[in-house]
């Protein structure tokens, strides 16, 4: 039987030798033989252990103990008592979740390492906003922001949640009892479950009111659609169906409606037959305008009239139009012609925040038959729900004292509202004041209760960004501080038991009907997103019940627009959001502050953009000092009675004459170490409209800028290769993408063929190459921030950026076209000196190109040859390695780099108190965002792009585990992953099937500075402009 089966441990055992017996007996000492030697007295006395021996032993043991004590300091690491089975140290876990801050929405994957979220990636499952922007990439750092409110406060004293919530409830009820209003002020709410909770909460009070306030509002647009389609929502723009995109003041690649269109934009703009054409009519030089094939400069007051003019053109009607000049008319006529040629497959987008313009734009699209094919009224976007009228009436009510209690959630009205509205005074009149906020911001000071909200990476939640998409968010880390979600508070007030998680789950099961994609809570939670048929029953409180859409009053709209145009006087100002800081919610995020503006290449500031002509008339200047740092005028800005002091001024090529631009989101005073005092608060002169006329500026001294690019034109060099679509289609490649040729003794050879030596073996190992499509790159900067956090790149702050010492491994160069070039010089007989000086000047209405530049990983790398200590050398996979701990910092490599991509650690950024405010690594919480796979570099060493070698190694290991060669998708660099337009492709060119191999053979491919003979591993794809 199994039980008495005998297992022998050795052959001796088998033969049962006595030795085995003995061993078995002595295996364990049964009892310690203390008695033997301590037991009987005389034995002890007769024992040989004398006093001397004893002292010997004592001495020895003491010495031994002392020696044993001499050890290296012990670094304590606490092991898992019970290891979570899904968590393997060193292996990242990804969780799908959803980000929405009232302005930006994205479905993302969160990369966590050992339970810490360290990176945000786009969620490939998502069909709506499944891409990341610079801001979305940055959100992970805002989790570790030590500036966050860390516990509930009452009148500046910390309190506890239970009492705080109880008190608020009590006081609200008494106020409501006195017939006072109870106001809930939030940003746009897209969470069905939250709406349901709010509805239940509202039921408690007889006089409850939910007001929605968007910092950058689309209220006017929403008013229009409410009237027209009966829903307070915006139509989904199906850009992928458009052949002609016309933006009239609509920065749809930037801050337009919250719907991320970059991906579709990139898709429809792929070179070849049927490449979509993009015409932009605008005042500022926006990111969108800089990508347009044709850009028309027009004052914002004229945008409406331009739309009317276009409408008349396409519909044959003759509505009254504002006084457009002939130049504008000519250009608009051209646009009309093109629109008519693209009926049903074009789109006209109106910017701004006014009803009439939107009405006109919608009318145009209707007239062209673009509705619903492109402008999809059956698919609505809910990301903007702010109601400016409601906000102002609320403020008035508060002033009149009819409001008994106000609860604000995730909004900062005292900062985002124009002071003339008098929010601060009004709210002081309200007896019960509570705010749910992530930090003690500008508004929190006005409230009795400041209650900390959890970060989205700590929260549960759901979202209905559009009428057809449903998204879930889940926590990826325990709340760092004593924070709660607003939903939890509501549940306490309503008196619901259980956690919000339970409520959310049950809500999902009852109300959400997943049609497309995977069903089931767990699956949807895993995917993060799902498609739904129609909205859940708990309806958006802001939308009226369905009603027959009235016919649009276009003549009325036209009249309004005409008044707008004729009424405008003086300088016109357009407010916009920057790629980095956006509305200012994440202002305290040093990564986003340091991200240079895509157009001006200035970081750590907002400023007025003005045309050179106006600047000269007003005697404003921009100039570089002897160290190459930018100095400029600063002015006092007055808009509609409100003044703003010390606003810096940047002379912006392409800025419409008679207009200025100013970014919101800056000038925070209570945001945190990094943000406070950076820039000026544009909201304080902005009046819910995205533009205003009659702005005046007066010189007020000099300002110091931090810019990282002081050379603005290509100086006639082939840096960004560009070709018009017609040439691209018709002409031979040699005419628009000529390879530099060297005259050698073997006859003319290209840079790749010309070689002094036999090459190293580039076949056996994978050969990593990167392709950057200059046609798809829109310059948004998502890759820069992604690289920043993937590779622990130090943040250096304003002064060091000003010293031209930014540390970005990946930068996006921006070049303006110049009026001067070889041809002009030739025909006007201009000499070389004057020619080059003129070339440095950008044109008044320049064409703009963006070029991401990182280490080109040259196979004949100038940097490697010159390093005296061989700290940088080449790998068998074509990568240019940097051995940080071998580097002695001679900077010779950086000098000898033709691309100037090497970055030197001028200071000890992780220790030097000069950087304590800006560098996350110097913050006890900020530290947690560091990528454990990447070294944090010490002072005095050179660093640069490594092609995310940590990801390459991981990818290779994965492939190895599966016993196959690496293939596409195994390795993807942070920049490539973050790019919303998929402009960056990375892969192994030794894999002939790979996408990168095709890209390399593409006609458009070329190496940057190929004639230098560095044989880079990075290559660029020629930009194709769809000129008419």
């Amino acid at each position, binding site marked *: 039987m199994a039980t008495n089966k005998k297992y022998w441990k050795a052959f001796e055992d088998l033969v049962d030798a006595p030795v085995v017996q003995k061993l078995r007996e002595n295996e364990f000492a049964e009892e310690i033989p203390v008695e033997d030697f301590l037991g009987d007295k005389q034995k002890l006395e007769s024992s040989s252990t004398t006093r001397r021996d004893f002292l010997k032993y004592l001495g020895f043991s003491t010495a031994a103990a002392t020696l044993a004590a001499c050890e290296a300091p012990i670094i304590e690491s606490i092991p898992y008592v019970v290891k979570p089975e899904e968590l393997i140290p060193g292996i990242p876990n990804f969780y799908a979740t959803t980000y929405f801050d009232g302005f930006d929405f994205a479905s993302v994957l969160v990369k966590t390492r050992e339970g810490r979220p360290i990176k945000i990636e786009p969620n490939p499952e998502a069909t709506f906003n499944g891409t990341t922007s610079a801001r979305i990439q940055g959100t992970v750092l805002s989790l570790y922001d030590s500036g966050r409110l860390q516990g509930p406060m009452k009148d500046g004293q910390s309190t506890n949640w239970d009492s705080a919530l109880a008190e608020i409830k009590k006081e609200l009820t008494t106020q409501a009892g006195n017939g006072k209003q109870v106001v809930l002020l939030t940003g746009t709410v897209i969470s069905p479950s939250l709406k349901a909770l709010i509805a239940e909460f509202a039921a408690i009070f007889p006089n409850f009111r939910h007001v929605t306030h968007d910092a950058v509002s689309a209220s006017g647009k929403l008013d229009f659609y409410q009237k027209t389609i009966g829903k307070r929502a915006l139509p989904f723009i199906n850009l992928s169906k458009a052949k002609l995109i016309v933006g009239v003041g609509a920065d749809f690649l930037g801050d337009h409606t919250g719907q991320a269109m970059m991906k579709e934009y990139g898709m429809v703009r792929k070179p070849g037959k049927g490449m979509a054409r993009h015409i932009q009519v605008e005042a500022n030089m926006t990111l969108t305008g800089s990508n347009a094939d044709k850009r028309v400069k027009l004052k914002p007051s004229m945008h409406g009239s331009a739309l009317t003019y276009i409408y008349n053109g396409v519909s044959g009607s003759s509505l009254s139009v504002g006084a457009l000049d002939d130049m504008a008319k000519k250009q608009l006529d051209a646009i009309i012609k093109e629109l008519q040629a693209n009926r049903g497959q074009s789109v006209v987008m109106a910017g701004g925040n006014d009803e009439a313009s939107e009405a006109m734009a919608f009318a145009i699209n209707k007239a062209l038959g673009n509705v619903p094919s492109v402008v999809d009224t059956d698919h609505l976007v809910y990301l903007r729900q702010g109601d400016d009228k409601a906000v102002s009436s609320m403020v008035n009510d508060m002033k009149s004292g009819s409001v008994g209690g106000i609860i604000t959630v995730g909004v900062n009205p005292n900062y985002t509202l124009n002071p003339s509205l008098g929010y601060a005074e009004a709210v002081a009149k309200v007896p019960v004041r509570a705010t749910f906020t992530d930090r003690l911001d500008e508004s929190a000071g006005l409230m009795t209760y400041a209650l900390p909200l959890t970060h989205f990476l700590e929260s549960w939640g759901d979202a209905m960004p559009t009428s057809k998409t449903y998204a879930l968010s889940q926590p990826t880390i325990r709340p760092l501080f004593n924070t709660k979600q607003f939903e939890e508070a509501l549940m306490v007030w309503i008196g619901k038991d259980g956690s919000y998680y339970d409520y959310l789950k049950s809500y999902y099961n009852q109300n959400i009907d997943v049609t497309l994609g995977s069903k089931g809570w767990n699956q949807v939670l895993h995917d993060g997103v799902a498609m739904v048929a129609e909205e859940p029953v708990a309806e958006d409180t802001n939308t009226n019940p369905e009603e027959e859409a009235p016919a649009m009053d276009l003549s009325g709209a036209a009249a309004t627009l005409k008044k707008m145009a004729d009424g405008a006087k003086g300088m016109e100002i357009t407010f916009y959001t920057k790629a980095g800081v956006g509305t200012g919610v994440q202002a305290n995020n040093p990564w986003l502050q340091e991200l240079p503006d895509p157009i001006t290449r200035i970081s750590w500031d907002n400023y007025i953009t003005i045309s050179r002509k106006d600047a000269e008339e007003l005697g404003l200047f921009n100039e570089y000092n002897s160290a190459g740092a930018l100095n400029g005028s600063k002015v006092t800005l007055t808009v509609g009675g409100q003044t703003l002091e010390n606003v810096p001024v940047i002379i912006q090529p392409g800025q419409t004459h008679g207009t200025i631009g100013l970014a919101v989101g800056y000038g925070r005073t209570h945001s945190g170490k990094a943000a406070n005092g950076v820039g000026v608060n544009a909201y304080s002169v902005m009046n819910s409209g995205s533009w205003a006329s009659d702005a005046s500026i007066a010189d007020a001294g000099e300002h110091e800028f931090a810019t990282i690019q002081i050379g603005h034109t290509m100086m006639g060099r082939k840096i960004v290769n560009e070709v018009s679509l017609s040439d691209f289609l018709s002409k031979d490649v040699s005419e628009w993408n000529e390879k530099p040729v060297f005259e050698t003794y073997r006859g003319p050879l290209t840079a790749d063929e010309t070689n002094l030596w036999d090459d190293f073996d580039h076949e056996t190992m994978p050969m990593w190459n990167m392709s950057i499509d200059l046609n798809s790159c829109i310059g948004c900067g998502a890759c820069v921030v992604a690289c920043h956090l993937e590779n622990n790149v130090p943040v250096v702050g304003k002064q060091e950026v000003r010293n031209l010492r930014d540390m970005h491994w990946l930068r996006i160069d921006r070049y303006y076209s110049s009026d001067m070039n070889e041809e002009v010089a030739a025909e006007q007989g201009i000499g070389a000196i004057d020619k080059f000086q003129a070339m440095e000047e950008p044109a008044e209405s320049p064409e703009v190109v963006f070029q991401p530049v990182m280490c080109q990983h040259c196979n004949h790398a100038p940097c490697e040859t010159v390093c005296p200590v061989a700290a940088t050398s080449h790998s068998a996979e074509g990568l240019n390695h940097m051995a940080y701990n071998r580097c002695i910092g001679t900077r010779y490599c950086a000098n000898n780099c033709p691309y100037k991509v090497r970055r030197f650690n001028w*200071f000890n950024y992780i220790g030097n108190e000069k950087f304590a405010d800006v560098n996350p690594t110097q913050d006890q919480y900020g530290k947690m965002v560091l990528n454990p796979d990447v070294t944090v570099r010490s002072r005095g060493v050179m660093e640069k792009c490594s092609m995310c070698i940590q990801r390459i190694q991981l990818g290779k290991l994965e492939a190895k585990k599966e016993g196959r060669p690496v293939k596409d998708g195994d390795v993807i660099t942070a920049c490539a992953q973050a790019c919303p337009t998929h402009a960056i492709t990375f892969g192994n060119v030794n894999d002939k099937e790979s996408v990168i191999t095709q890209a390399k053979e593409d006609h458009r491919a070329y190496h940057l500075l190929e004639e230098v003979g560095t044989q880079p591993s990075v290559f660029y794809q020629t930009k194709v402009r769809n000129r008419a």
Partner: protein
Amino acid sequence: MHYESPIREPLILGDKSYHDITVDVAKPVETTAPRSWWVAFSLALVLFLWGVGCILYTIGTGIGVWGLNKTVGWAWDITNFVWWVGIGHAGTLISAILLLFKQKWRLSINRSAEAMTIFSVIQAALFPGIHMGRIWNAYFVFPIPNQFGSLWVNFNSPLLWDVFAISTYFSVSLVFWYVGLIPDFAMIRDRAIRPVQKHIYTILSFGWGGRAKHWQRFEEVSLILAGLATPLVLSVHTIVSMDFATSVIPGWHTTIFPPYFVAGAIFSGFAMVQTLLIITRKLFHLEDYITIQHVEMMNIIIMVTGSIVGVAYLTELFIAWYSGVEYEQYAFLNRATGPYWWAYLSMMTCNVFSPQFMWFKKLRTNLIFTFILSIVVNIGMWFERFVIIVTSLHRDYLPSSWSMFSPTFVDIGIFLGTIGFFFVLFLLYARTFPVIAQAELKTALKSSGENYKKEHANHGHH
């Protein structure tokens, strides 16, 4: 046997005997220092200490305290390095090449020239060290086994060639100098009265006694060292120039650099010798040994080398245009007409234009003028290096990375510090060392001494 053509100017003036030379040379060492020396010395010392402070600040805080940026990674540091190395050329050149050519006029100046060489190379050697981001790892540049396994230096790197060139040049110049000093130390030893002094010089003189066999070997060694030092001198600046010539930066990537740098080095070196000798001569009343003729000889060399440098500048411009490479063309256009035109202008004026005055005998025999010009030349040579380094780097291939450079007080402080350090060393040397190679000079007394030449002349008459 000691006959020399009477047409040649005497190199030693006045009615001198061997003993007079001994006395004159030993005087500075045996007498106490004049007030002027103390003034000069304390001034130099202050500058030196200021420089030390700036260096310590740099090492403590980071290279960021300099005016450099991501595009201009080298500026004053390497400018000063090349400048000092260049100055450090004349000494060995004078003693070596002129010795090979049996130029007797070298005898009264070679000792100080060599001293200057060694002291300026010490200044030069500072910069490759302190310009490192992590100077505490400077030993990585030596081919020694290390804790990183079989990780060796990179012999492809011009910067490593520098390490070898500079250390070889420095150490060889040093022994060359010292071998020559031994007999003169012996002389001072044998005259010394104060026991301490006697003791010190006994140690320094290695017990030299002037044996015939020793003199025979001495001359052989000097000759061979001279033979070795001559190519060495030429090699040092050649290799320094390769730091730039082997790079890909427009304005650096120039094959003309080696000869051009060497000429420039001799040019600045002689200018510096000129500066120092005119001071020493005044300070220690050595007018009889360092004569106007010496000054003139060197002025001629300055003029010639200055013109060579000028030709090099023009060649550069021509080649840049002729090459047809747009980057090269722009680089040189930018030098002359870009933001740093003033540096280029000062370089041209000081180095090419000003030496041309030396065509006039009146000017090249005028001490004041010579003194001023010798300083002007070195200012010009500093600007040459600044122009090559900064104006080439600040605008290279990609306009997006273009930048500017302006020095911080630390940059300036370190430069002044090295000047201070240099003079501290030189002034100490002038008080304690035989500033003229008296033993060798004595061999030339009978052939080139004024009184002896007169005798010959008289003999010639009857």
